[in-house]
């Protein structure tokens, strides 16, 4: 019984509000770091900046953080 409870606690650890919120912040910060050049909007005017794989990673990170934020807000 005790081991079953421990197992369940370990499995639900990632779904705790604090943990999801912390990871959401990490993902958001990481996303903005990788997006860097795209944040200001100058990227639209400057034709030197082309498509960058790192910017795409930043975008995906922000997407992940949005899911985690939604989960941590929704969870009671």
């Amino acid at each position, binding site marked *: 019984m005790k081991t079953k409870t421990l197992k369940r606690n370990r499995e639900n650890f*990632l779904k705790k509000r604090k943990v999801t919120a912390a*990871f959401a912040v990490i*993902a958001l910060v*990481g996303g903005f770091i990788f997006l860097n050049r795209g944040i200001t909007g100058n990227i639209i005017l400057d034709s030197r900046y082309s498509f960058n*794989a*790192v910017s795409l990673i930043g975008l995906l*990170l922000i997407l992940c953080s949005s*899911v*985690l934020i939604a989960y941590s807000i929704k969870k009671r």
Partner: protein
Amino acid sequence: MLNKDEIIAVLISTIILAFSITLIETWKIFFYALASVFILLFANILVKKITAFYYDAEVEVKLWEFKRFGFRQHWYTKKPFPAGALFPIASKIVLFPINSFVWMASLVFDVKAKTYRAAKRHGLYSFSEMTEDHIGYIAAAGIAINLILALIGYLVGFPLFSKLNIFYAFFNMLPISDLDGNKIFFGNLVLWCFLATLTLIALGYTFLLV
């Protein structure tokens, strides 16, 4: 531990991946890549098998193949398409300018519950089959070990090994077809987000630093 078919699948995918990554630039680099790919695949499978054992199940590894290519019922090929063997080489041609960045998701796994799982875990006949949640945890264990190996490789001073681990984790995290990412995504979305965050941060730093 590994049956004959699994060993053949691992060896084939190791050779294909090492070839696609290096294109046998020099034999030294090729063997370095070969050893790196073998270690990362072996670690991934081993951890999955251990996790499956923990959930009273069996994991069988095979080369990634798909038959169906669309939403409609008749959209499928007569013979399974060996995507795990062909995608790495095809991606090397398409993504050639980005050094050693090739499609690395070549192995998938099937999970079967052991016969005594029902009686042992949740009472007779309840949850006797594997739940999507548990399959997701098994897949996640493989991704996690690759990320840990990448960190160890980076700290010890093996940049290529570190890179390959991150690429392998990244491609396996894609939620498509029968890949690990799909199993995690439909098993536990939050866990997928956690692992995707870690993998993407690692991938970003791979492009910027390593």
